[in-house]
């Protein structure tokens, strides 16, 4: 009897975690993400200088200069400090974009999949239509209309990225709503929204979480690309893409300015990709055979 009750407690997520733990790359990714968040939270303590502190007598100092382990930039600002503060921007961008796009996509996908009919047709026409645009160009277009800023860049990416969630959740809901537990919930008088978000959504959550993890990686990458083009964060901020944009003009004289911010982007994106891949394998062990 004891055995049985203990087995009941083993939820899907405990199994997933057990499989996830065995994936070395995924654990490395998770470790990096935790470290990055700690850096972002304690940036004020960790950074040797404020990110915007200029020192005009010490411009373009190469890496290894005493007091500036990664050197200084064209205004004599400490590169390491700027990279540390940059984690705040990039992690925020990743989370905000994914939060917005998944909120829109999951809601619309759920409505389309659950209700079907004309609601479904309208939503899926919009989705199909957005797929007809090259995504990055659509994002650039939206920023071009709204005007360049980090906020508009995040909004543009969210408006572009929700379609993936919508398609996925709709597909899951179409399959799930035929199951008996939905009929049971309906029989006891649960409302449509209750069935969608309390009964169906938890069962469709796996792929959504994988997509969110990979989505953070993609959002950080795209947002830094927009900032690099001068369509996102402005050049004074410590955003990694904007730093690369400023650094590209000094490629010959100060190559470190175009090196370290890119490395920071890659490590961050790689960590989220590791975790996303690990989650996918952990959630669907059949693929791993």
């Amino acid at each position, binding site marked *: 009897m004891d055995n049985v009750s203990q087995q009941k407690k083993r939820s899907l997520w405990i199994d997933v975690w057990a499989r996830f733990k065995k994936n070395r790359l995924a654990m490395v990714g998770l470790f990096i993400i935790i470290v990055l968040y700690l850096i972002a939270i304690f940036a004020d303590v960790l950074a040797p200088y404020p990110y915007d502190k200029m020192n005009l007598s010490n411009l373009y100092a190469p890496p290894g200069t005493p007091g500036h382990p990664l050197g200084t930039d064209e205004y004599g600002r400490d590169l390491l400090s700027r990279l540390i503060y940059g984690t705040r921007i990039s992690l925020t961008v990743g989370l905000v974009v994914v939060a917005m796009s998944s909120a829109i996509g999951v809601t619309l996908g759920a409505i389309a999949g659950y209700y079907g009919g004309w609601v479904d047709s309208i939503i899926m026409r919009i989705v199909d239509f957005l797929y007809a*645009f*090259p995504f990055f160009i659509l994002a*650039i277009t939206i920023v*071009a209309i709204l005007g360049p800023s980090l906020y508009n860049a995040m909004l543009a990416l969210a408006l572009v990225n929700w379609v993936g969630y919508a398609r996925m959740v709709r597909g899951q809901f179409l399959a799930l709503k035929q199951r008996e537990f939905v009929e049971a919930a309906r029989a006891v008088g649960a409302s449509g929204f209750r069935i969608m978000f309390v009964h169906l959504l938890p069962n469709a959550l796996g792929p959504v979480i994988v997509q969110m993890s990979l989505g953070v990686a993609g959002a950080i990458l795209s947002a*830094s690309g927009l900032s*690099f083009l001068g369509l996102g964060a402005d050049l004074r901020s410590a955003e990694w893409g904007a730093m690369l944009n400023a650094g590209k003009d000094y490629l010959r004289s100060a190559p470190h300015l175009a090196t370290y911010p890119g490395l920071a982007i*890659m490590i961050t994106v790689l960590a989220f990709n590791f975790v996303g891949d690990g989650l996918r394998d952990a959630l669907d062990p059949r693929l791993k055979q």
Partner: protein
Amino acid sequence: MLKFIIRRLLQAIPTLLGISIVVFLMVHLAPGDPVLIMLGSQEQAITPERIEELREEWGFNDPLYVQYWRWLKNALRGDLGKSIYTGQDVFKTIVERIPATLLLTISSMIVAIAISLPVGIISAVRQYSAWDYIGMVGALLGVSMPAFWLALLSMYVFSLKLGWLPATGMGHFSQGLGTVIKHLILPSFTLGFGMAAMTTRLTRSSMLEVFRQDYIRTAKAKGLSEKVVIYRHALKNALIPIVTVIGTQFGSLLGGAVVTETIFAWPGMGRQAIASIQRRDLPMIQGNVLLMCLIFVLVNLIVDISYTWLDPRIRYD
């Protein structure tokens, strides 16, 4: 076959109309008075009366659908207006730049396919070997690396330090094909690398999926050589999902080209688009977006049609 192509062409019409509506609406969605936007920054001191006059003259007082119809009719005749910044004809300026962008994106695609198919196939055939491991970690790095960073690094190493390749520009065909190819190497490799990474992962998983099918076991049981089984039986079937993705990947290549062209001063549409966004040159932005989307729709059409060749089971009726 012809019937399928015609039907697929007809299906593209609503998409194209939708794209044209979005592009048309850009002027009206941008914050600020459309008249002031179309005037650009040249005329600061303009009287409200003059604005009203221009609004009437340019037809901004007409109902939106009348304006759209007029815009669409002009667009179909290749009249997309004039650049606010240079006064040049938008359509002509952009069309001149299409070949450069196509040259870059198609070479990047060739680079991507040339890397990803062999690596993906080897990774799948020798699953869990050292090759597989190296290939997959390399692919993950490629997916996670910002293309503009790779571009800057390779520009630093191969043109500034080693001096092997030119850093910017495209050269001209009159200087010989070799010059253009030299200019093309860095941009197409940095742009193609990200796509190579993605396609490698897909090739591997698609091949692994096909290897599990019964007909592969049959082919092996017949005593066919491994080569024949891999290339004739497995690869052709594994290619179907890969071709789909190559079509959609063309969209990200066009998006990536915007970045790559800006870095390498490649005289294509992408660089033009960014320059016109920085100048807030709205007709030029509209033209670039419209033509890039048009190219994307066309490429997907070609991909769809090529399916029927790859997989005769697909008939679409």
